[in-house]
């Protein structure tokens, strides 16, 4: 895919994204939340974020919201990543590596299969 070089090209991208959104009209929006407290950052949360963004870009995944949260008190299991699909309860994953993050996006966010061997009970 050619990289966008200017704000003019962004206009086109915006129109395309609007079209896609109209088609999808997402009732089950997917949200990925990464813990970005000091403990998370020290444990590698930024690399997990990088992996998530690069997965979305490489696989052309549209309509996923990525956000952050602070320390949630499970510092020894950082980096922590949470997934919320549509109206379903939030699922919390611990000790997330960049490659596990990709795995979670593929299996859970895209296909709806929770990777229960990596989840934490909050």
């Amino acid at each position, binding site marked *: *895919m050619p*990289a*966008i*070089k200017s*704000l003019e*090209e*962004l*206009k086109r*991208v*915006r129109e*395309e*994204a*609007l079209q896609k959104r109209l088609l999808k009209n997402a009732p089950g929006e997917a949200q990925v939340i*990464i813990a*970005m*407290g*000091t403990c998370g*950052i*020290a444990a590698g949360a*930024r690399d997990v*974020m*990088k992996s998530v*963004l*690069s997965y*979305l*870009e*490489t*696989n*052309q*995944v*549209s309509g*996923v*919201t*990525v*956000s*952050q949260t*602070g*320390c*949630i*008190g499970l*510092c020894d299991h950082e980096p922590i990543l949470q997934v919320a699909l549509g109206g379903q309860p939030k699922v919390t994953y611990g000790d997330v590596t960049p490659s596990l993050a990709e795995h979670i996006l593929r299996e859970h966010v895209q296909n709806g299969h929770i990777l229960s061997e990596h989840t934490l009970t909050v």
Partner: protein
Amino acid sequence: MREISLHLLDIAENSAAAGAHNVRVAVTEDLRADQLTACVQDDGCGMNAETLKQVLDPFYTSRSSRKVGLGLPLLKAAAEMAGGGLTIESTPGAGTRVEVIFQHSHLDRMPLGDLGCSFLTLLVAHPEIHWHFSHQMLQTDGKSHDFNFDDHALKNELGDIPLTEPEVLAYLRGLFQF
């Protein structure tokens, strides 16, 4: 944390937690003065004089989920080990400015690291904040390389399209060069 850029991400997260609307993260590498200066400035809730005295104490934290907060004290120690220091100015209700200085050539200076990745992380994780990022490199021959990014034009153009759309991410990755 082994990179200055990770510490900057950590400090800017504090700005976000302080409810800032505008945050500026600036890095200047001045090879003539042999100095690396990094600064995070916000218009968040700020701190009173008493809190300001405590934030550099490793056994102080404003969080309730655990009892130690190590971000700022560790960065201060790292800067002091590398011929520099850390200063914080804060006014309640007006904002906070954290500045850290390192001797650029000091053997114990941690690497700047992946600054672009820290910028992208902040931009995506806090779309509600108006970000300004800069990285200036002043060479010994007097030449200067400047990177300046203000998210205003980008967000205006995108409107309600999220920054996490694949095409937008490709654009941002090119912009932050990694």
